[in-house]
């Protein structure tokens, strides 16, 4: 069972569960930039939430199936064309051998996920199949998809269940993001940041991080401290006057001041921020953030019992 890549899109990668226990070696977790959308796509084809799927930034991917199988799309809204006909996102789709499925461009949101029954086969590196582009490991030889690639899939009998994502599980896509966050260890460098917030994602954005311009207070010194551990969701202020929020392929240690940390419950939103989108930060305490995570996970539990954000 396999798919042939006809159009590779812009840096489409295979992603699965993130790595753990490797950050002290400088190896990031990787995994989906929007794990909730990937889980929703996997659910529709009977896979676990973190089964290996294709992450497609901005769409524009075309694939040809070599066998009959079930597929599904979730994430940023886009036009899907299956064997020449429009097909819905958020529904189990059946593709036959020789047929082509194409994803159009996203106008809002940044990433789509395509899941296949049985999941895609991928290289394992340190316990995870997720592609890490900076290190060129995991996924398909550690790189983004290219035209002509052949993507193997796991053996799984299609269940022939026609599933649809429940209405109340669909994420709303907008150009404005409210991100809940707690203080980083260097939060004292941005006193009063909550008032008069005006932040925007710039064009410098990929799976390692997104630059955020706007009303950051200027750094008084060189803005460097001894290299310290950082994680996805970490917001670092740089001497350029802009900040970066880190994503799954980010470095594991860094010397820029760590002023905020986007809470775990909202990190999946980072994967859908596109250049020009507005960003607003909402302050939480660590324990309030843990409650937010419990609430969000509980909300999805009936549909995605194994969801891990």
């Amino acid at each position, binding site marked *: 069972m396999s798919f042939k890549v006809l159009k590779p899109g812009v840096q489409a990668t295979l992603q699965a569960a993130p790595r*753990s*226990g*490797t*950050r*002290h*070696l*400088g*190896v990031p977790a990787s995994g989906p930039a929007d794990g909730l959308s990937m889980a929703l796509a996997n659910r529709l084809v009977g896979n676990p939430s973190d089964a290996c799927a294709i992450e497609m930034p901005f769409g524009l991917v075309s694939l040809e199936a070599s066998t009959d199988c079930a597929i599904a799309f979730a994430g940023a809204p886009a036009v899907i064309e299956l064997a020449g006909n429009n097909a819905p996102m958020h529904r189990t789709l059946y593709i036959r051998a020789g047929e082509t499925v194409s994803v159009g461009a996203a106008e809002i949101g940044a990433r789509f996920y395509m899941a296949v029954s049985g999941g895609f086969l991928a290289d394992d*590196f340190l316990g995870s199949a997720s592609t*890490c582009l*900076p*290190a*060129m*490991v995991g996924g398909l030889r*550690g790189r983004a998809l290219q035209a002509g690639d052949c993507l193997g899939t796991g053996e799984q009998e299609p269940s022939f269940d026609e599933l649809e994502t429940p209405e109340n599980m669909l994420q709303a896509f907008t150009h404005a993001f409210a991100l809940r*966050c*707690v*203080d*980083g*260890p260097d939060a004292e460098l941005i006193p009063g940041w909550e008032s008069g917030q005006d932040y925007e994602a710039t064009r410098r954005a990929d799976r390692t991080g997104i630059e955020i311009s706007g009303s950051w207070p200027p750094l008084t010194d*060189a803005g*460097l401290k*001894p*290299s*310290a*551990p950082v*994680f996805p*969701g*970490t917001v670092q202020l740089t*001497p350029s006057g802009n900040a970066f929020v880190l994503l799954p392929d980010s*470095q*594991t*240690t*860094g*010397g820029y001041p*760590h002023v905020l*940390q*986007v*809470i*775990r419950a909202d990190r999946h939103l980072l994967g859908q921020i596109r250049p020009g989108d507005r960003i607003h930060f909402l302050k*939480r305490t*660590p*324990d309030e*953030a*843990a409650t937010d*995570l*419990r609430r969000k*996970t509980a909300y999805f539990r009936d549909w995605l019992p194994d969801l*891990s954000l």
Partner: protein
Amino acid sequence: MPAFHLFFLGDDAVAVQPNDRALRHPLAKALRDSGEWIDTVPGKEVVAVHFDPLALRPTEAMGKLEDWLSSFRAGAFEPGRPIDLHLDCSADHAPDLQTLADQNGLTPHTLLERVTGSELVVDMLGFTPGFAYVEGLDPTLKAERLAVPRQKVMAGAVGLVSGQLGFYGLTGPGGWPIIGRLTETLFDPERAAPFLLEEGQVVRLHLVDV
């Protein structure tokens, strides 16, 4: 008597800062060996542990760590085997060597002699796969990070900022002035042991003739 300062790095990580920096490595090893944490990551001054706030509330995680630290006793830290590495300082591989030498009032050759004559030790890995922070550099050598980081630093490049060297494991962006490039491969995922270096390891640096 070791003392520890604990603080949150968000809702799913806690940092421990020991009053003695040398405790970081035995502390990180013991925390990793405990199997209680998703990731245990040393920095230059702290050790961070990463946890799942669904399983453990942040204040519970901090309390658990405090309890654990009250009975922590650092064992002797075993230094890794020494390793010989070779540095190519030809012009293509050392774009900042002349500038750094000028800033320090030295010739490139005398600057490099002070580098290779230093008692170098791998302080920690981190940043990107294979990157090593190497300490022990002659403290008279002064250098600051570049005002504008380079978009592309080659794998194996050796950067120098005051007090330490940085060995780049991957080709990618980087902000340290570059004085040469190692002939050895620091990170190779195809190798049985992908990482050439380990923390605590003594590094003997040799200049190669080109």
